[in-house]
């Protein structure tokens, strides 16, 4: 599967709606098979989603995202795990190991996620 993470220096971008730099990572059996950076500066919000879709991205791991933009992304067929914070490599590591927990959520968002190990459950249920 291919996933995209908006990045800002070494960190996940705080707001997906305003993010233009993406790491697109291809995972094969829990290993990173490919990892590329894309600069989508100058593209509109819709164009960025279209572009990621054209790259075959199936999931976005990101920080805050507005409800409206979330709907647009979901309609394009890409799934989203939002409200994440932290270093991009840390998040990627815990996602691959199924250890993505509420500890990686942005402040004020823990009430939104009741499950403790969101990554593992999400992946097991959706990516089979």
């Amino acid at each position, binding site marked *: 599967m291919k996933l995209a993470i908006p990045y*800002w220096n070494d960190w996940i*971008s*705080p*707001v997906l*709606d*305003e*993010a233009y730099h993406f790491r697109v990572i291809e995972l094969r059996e829990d290993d990173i098979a490919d990892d590329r950076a894309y600069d989508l*500066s*100058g*593209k*509109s*919000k*819709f*164009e960025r989603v279209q572009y990621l879709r054209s790259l075959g991205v199936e999931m976005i791991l990101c*920080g*805050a*995202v*507005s*409800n*409206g933009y*979330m709907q*647009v992304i979901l309609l394009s067929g890409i799934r989203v795990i*939002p409200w994440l*914070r932290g270093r991009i490599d840390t998040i990627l590591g815990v996602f691959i190991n199924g250890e993505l927990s509420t500890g990686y959520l*942005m*402040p*004020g*968002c*823990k*009430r*939104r996620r009741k499950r403790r190990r969101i990554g593992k459950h999400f992946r097991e249920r959706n990516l089979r």
Partner: protein
Amino acid sequence: MMEINGKKIKHKLSFEEIEAILNSITDGVFTVDEGWHITSFNRAAEKITGVPEEEAVGSFCYNVFRASICETDCALRRTFKTGKTVVNKPVYIINSDGEKVPISISTALLKDKNGKVVGGVETFRDLSMVERLRKELYAKYVFEDIVSKSPRMQNIFEILPLIARSDSPVLIEGESGTGKELIASAIHNLSGRKGKPLVKINCGAFPDTLLESELFGYKAGAFTDAKKDKKGRFAVAGKGTIFLDEIGDISPALQVSLLRILQDGTYQPLGGIETLKSEARVITATNKSLLQLVNDGRFRSDLYYRINVFKIELPPLRERKEDIPLLIQHFIDKYNKLKGKDVSDISPEALRILVNYDYPGNVRELENIIEHSFVLLSGGMITPDTLPNEVIKKEIINLPVLPNSKKDFEREMILSALKNNNWNRSKAARQLGIHKTTLYRKIKSLQIKLPLLDGRNKE
């Protein structure tokens, strides 16, 4: 020591008192250390962001605040760099419910008693209510996709429903780009014919013979390529509305056919012998003065009076400049939705340029200007450098010209200094703060005539 009502009181605010003050204000306030960790977060900040204080304090500010500018143009970062405060910058944040909240932010540096920068403070105001009021106010100025608050247009908005309810022909006059087609659509939508076809045709876009077959249709064999019958636009309109744009451009022959359809509602397709009936309402429009064309003998007066039962005159944009800011906001909202961008506003300088422009292409031209800016922007504000060159060029040409204004000013200054010093050039030069040789040179170049009797020559 502090003074209250004239009394000097020795008092230093305690931490609890400062906290109580911060929590009592309606603006959100948070402070950060130099490592961008939040060190305090007041109650209003909790309410606006949806983040509890205990979760916010210690976190990176961008993970809590989640503003549109955090990554690209952080206001606090700029204040740290330049030492200058940012005041009331409009941005949006995403609260913990995923809602976009419009806010305005202001920043300042936090310094210790030695003047060393120890962090920054950001205050922000929730503009949701302002935004809601702006939208409500805006809704008052929108009438069936037409945006205006000018009294002339408001008068048109008032009479439009009345005109729509009648079945009489309407003539819309206005320069190109003033919204004649929008008015025609509004009349159709407000009439009992809504739901039936609204057929629009630009008479100026067809050669005369083609226009006739377009309007009335033709029968097979009417001309070489007429292999089978074709319905005309009047037939397509049925019991709906037909909008004939640029009516001033039609030929005298076609004027006769149109007169007939308006008089008894009948017409004949090209090559046909049977007479068809039309029940369509006719709305016409022109960017010329039809009365002038009538006076010149280029337009039939009987047709003019037939189509001119109601006349709506649309003012050009240069005569309703109060609408320009409203229209700009309308087009910003439109293109944000269409192009998925986040252009927030227009800068005061760009707005000044657009208000001063004379818009030969009217509202359509303004829309094109905004679309042009959208090509160059993905967010932020419309600034003068995103406006088309012709608008900027016009602005430069329109600048007031002040020939020799610097020279006139210098001449006045020098003359005044010389008079004050009884025409003594050395003293005058000292007063002006320039060297006396410079003053001599200026007197010569500005051709200032000195009296024969001066400070040097008293006799």
